[in-house]
């Protein structure tokens, strides 16, 4: 075999536009990073490697040949395009606010910054938090001379690249529609600056939060504590804000902020309002102070985070994460397992059920995605419900909203299944590959059941119980019907989703799988429709009866969808719809 020349064998791929831009930006920050104690050459190498890895396809175990045309990248371009589209559209309300008229310039910019902070905060807590604390490559790096501070700074930069990309897209509508409502020469520079700095501020605050957690609890307990902190943050961002705003309004705090501008120094969105005011010509000390804070605070938060997390970060990432340790029993038991025994029809299904249920309670990647998402999504409905309960004028809306809120929780179903694909220990899938099983259908059915029984069902039940408590006995029947409707919604998309046996895919937190995007978007529409129907069923007992009858009639059919799951072979990337399992109950 003819070998390529030596220089070509060592040639590296340049990584494209995103990597080039990120490294160009990083090179501009060489001095400040070095001043913070970051080993810049190592930082640059780590950043480049992480960005390169994001673009590469997950490796296989070499257990089967990949078909012609199998994906060679990780869906990176598609993922980035999708993210940019979402941010692009999310900027539309802020842009429209500018052309409605009557909104003071500083208030509009505060709204733009508030929107950006909220979006980036949510992204960081639900998605990029996993990237920031990703433990998957710590085994490669922990024996290399990479300081904690350098690794942390590289992780921040990695996440920062994606936030800034999203920020560029988010700026589009506010920038161009903003020009119609405010002086264009001020709008054009200040909107991207505000959104960029808001992204860095959100990143800095979340990173500082993790850094302080690491300092306070130490590396051994960091994984566990930071997970719960992440859950609390997600819960607050998704649902808590909906409670806080009416409470602030009721308590007069919002009025105080309007009447006493000196309080604005404590609210970052107003800093950017001050910055805009200064660019428009204001020279009041208050605006100058706010503008100064807008420029300094993001940088200060990031620098503080790098300094605070400068000890034990590597050890913190290496820590173990177990949510609930089984005690007092030599073999695992529990309600979910007993239910699994009833629902699984074959030994293979049962084995996959137990495997997936056990990993779903201890796999760090899964827990970091599933817990904040599930709890956060649940709290959205409850967060909207409580203000209605507290406000006499809006109380008439509550009966409509309660069943709708229960239906919304069905959105967690596909999210759980997507999150359940990945594992740190994906290579252990050889166990399944080595089994004398003719088709992967029973394994997928068992694993999917575990995620539904162990996660989706308790979430739905908990939300239904809380909703029933908030709404009172008069609506218990409606809540029960809504619970059945939500269960139906969770089951309905299953045959259309292309799934893998849970926990058998390599954990790649930044990978986007585009196979199921269309189905999930359709599913979201379905959930909204069903939530609407659940709400309308409150209008008349006959409507409720008809809705309940429809749901009950469809449930058995939807349950049978578990026999028609499409399975993706992780080695070849091929999707097959397994034949219905015919084995009798043997366990």
């Amino acid at each position, binding site marked *: *075999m003819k*070998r*390529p020349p*030596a220089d*070509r*064998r*060592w*040639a*590296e*791929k340049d990584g494209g536009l995103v990597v080039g831009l990120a490294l160009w930006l990083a090179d501009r920050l060489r001095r400040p990073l070095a001043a913070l104690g970051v080993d810049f*050459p*190592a930082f640059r*190498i*780590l950043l480049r*490697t992480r960005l*390169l*890895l994001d673009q*590469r*396809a*997950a*490796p*296989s175990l*070499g257990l089967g040949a990949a078909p012609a045309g199998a994906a060679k990248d990780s869906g990176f371009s598609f993922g980035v395009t999708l993210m940019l589209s979402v941010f692009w559209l999310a900027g539309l309300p802020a842009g429209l606010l500018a052309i409605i008229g009557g909104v003071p310039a500083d208030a509009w910019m505060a709204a733009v910054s508030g929107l950006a902070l909220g979006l980036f905060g949510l992204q960081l807590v639900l998605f990029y938090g996993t990237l920031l604390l990703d433990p998957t*490559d710590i*085994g*490669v*790096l*922990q*024996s*290399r*001379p*990479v*300081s904690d501070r350098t690794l942390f700074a590289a992780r921040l930069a990695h996440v920062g690249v994606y936030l800034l990309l999203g920020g560029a897209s988010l700026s589009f509508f506010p920038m161009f529609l903003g020009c119609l409502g405010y002086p264009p020469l001020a709008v054009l520079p200040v909107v991207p600056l505000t959104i960029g700095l808001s992204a860095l501020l959100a990143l800095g605050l979340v990173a500082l939060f993790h850094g302080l957690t690491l300092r306070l609890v130490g*590396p*051994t307990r960091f994984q566990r504590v930071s997970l719960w902190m992440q859950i609390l943050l997600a819960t607050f961002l998704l649902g808590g804000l909906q409670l806080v705003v009416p409470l602030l309004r009721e308590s007069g705090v919002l009025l105080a902020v309007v009447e006493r501008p000196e309080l604005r120094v404590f609210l970052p969105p107003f800093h950017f309002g001050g910055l805009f005011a200064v660019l428009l010509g204001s020279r009041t000390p208050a605006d100058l102070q706010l503008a100064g804070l807008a420029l300094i605070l993001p940088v200060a938060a990031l620098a503080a985070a790098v300094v605070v997390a400068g000890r*034990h970060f590597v*050890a913190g990432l*290496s820590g173990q994460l177990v949510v609930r340790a089984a005690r007092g029993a030599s073999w695992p038991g529990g309600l979910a397992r007993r239910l699994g025994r009833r629902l699984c029809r074959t030994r293979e299904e049962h084995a996959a059920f137990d495997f997936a249920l056990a990993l779903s309670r201890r796999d760090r990647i899964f827990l970091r995605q599933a817990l904040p998402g599930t709890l956060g999504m649940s709290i959205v409905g409850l967060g909207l419900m409580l203000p209605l309960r507290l406000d006499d004028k809006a109380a008439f809306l509550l009966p409509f909203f309660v069943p709708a809120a229960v239906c919304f929780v069905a959105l967690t179903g596909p999210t759980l299944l997507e999150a359940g694909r990945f594992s740190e220990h994906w290579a252990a899938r050889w166990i399944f590959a080595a089994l004398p099983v003719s088709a992967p259908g029973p394994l997928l059915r068992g694993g999917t059941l575990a995620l539904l029984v162990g996660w989706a069902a308790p979430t739905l039940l908990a939300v239904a119980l809380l909703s029933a408590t908030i709404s009172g006995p008069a609506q218990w029947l409606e809540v029960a019907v809504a619970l059945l409707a939500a269960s139906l919604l969770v089951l309905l998309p299953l045959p259309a989703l292309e799934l893998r046996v849970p926990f058998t895919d*390599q954990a790649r937190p930044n990978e986007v799988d585009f196979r199921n995007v269309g189905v999930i978007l359709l599913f979201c529409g379905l959930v909204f429709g069903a939530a609407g129907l659940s709400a309308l069923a409150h209008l008349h007992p006959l409507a409720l009866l008809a809705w309940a009858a429809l749901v009950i009639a469809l449930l058995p059919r939807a349950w049978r969808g578990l026999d028609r799951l499409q399975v993706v072979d992780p080695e070849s990337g091929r999707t097959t719809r397994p034949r219905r399992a015919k084995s009798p109950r043997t366990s």
Partner: protein
Amino acid sequence: MRLATGRATAATLGTTAAPGNIRGMDAVVEVRGLKKRYGDTLVLDGIDFAVPRGSILGYIGPNGAGKTTTVRILCGLLGDFEGEARVCGFDPRKDALEIKRRIGYVPENAVLYESLSVAEFLLLVGRLHGLPDETIHARGTAFLTAFELAGHLPARIATLSKGMRQKVLITSALLHDPQLLFVDEPLSGLDVNSAMLIKEFLRGLAAAGRTVFYCSHVMDVVERVCDRIVIVDGGHIAAEGTLAELESRVHGGSLEGIFARLTSAGDERERAAALLAALSPRDGAAS
């Protein structure tokens, strides 16, 4: 039978020895009263030993004896332990980074960036050690040529076999010419020729003044390669010395015999019978 408890070995080290100088020898690794707990479990319970410069220390013991924990502490990967440890003159608790600059580490379970090519991975590791690209190219090519792997430089690591990955891992641990090399089952997955090459190479490293800390379960390799041997069991040091010293104290014949006499309850035959008995009902069902 225990030849030396941790306390007794500590006495042999001498309390007046300065860090990095034990029994008049230049020690690259020195450990005194090393203790490590995972929750309520005491994994290391007062370990004492020293590794002279230019030697190969065989660190052996049954599963769960605390070998990997010791290595992880000495490599600066675990900071919370009791006792004293010096590696290349540095304290793993305070100067982990300095230690990592001077050591190479080949863990038992290879963890690599599977989506990178061999060349990209070696460049990553070499650059993290501050090596110029020319040095990485030269050393990397030399190692991989010796391992008959140079043709795989552009190949993604995910496409390599277990043995090939092990060779990449060994190459990455040696790129920066470490003073001290920690290897945990380094021959795992290697073919006979590559294993012979590694054994010869390790002897050559020691002759050139480098030190090797060799963890393994393969007794005949430890017997042939290592200058000194530490047998650890249940978090204690069961025996320490050259092979000749161990043979004179424990009449077990080969190192395997010595190891068995020190660490085994001698009931392997009964336990094997129990294993077979556990399988027999299934055999009956199958037939």
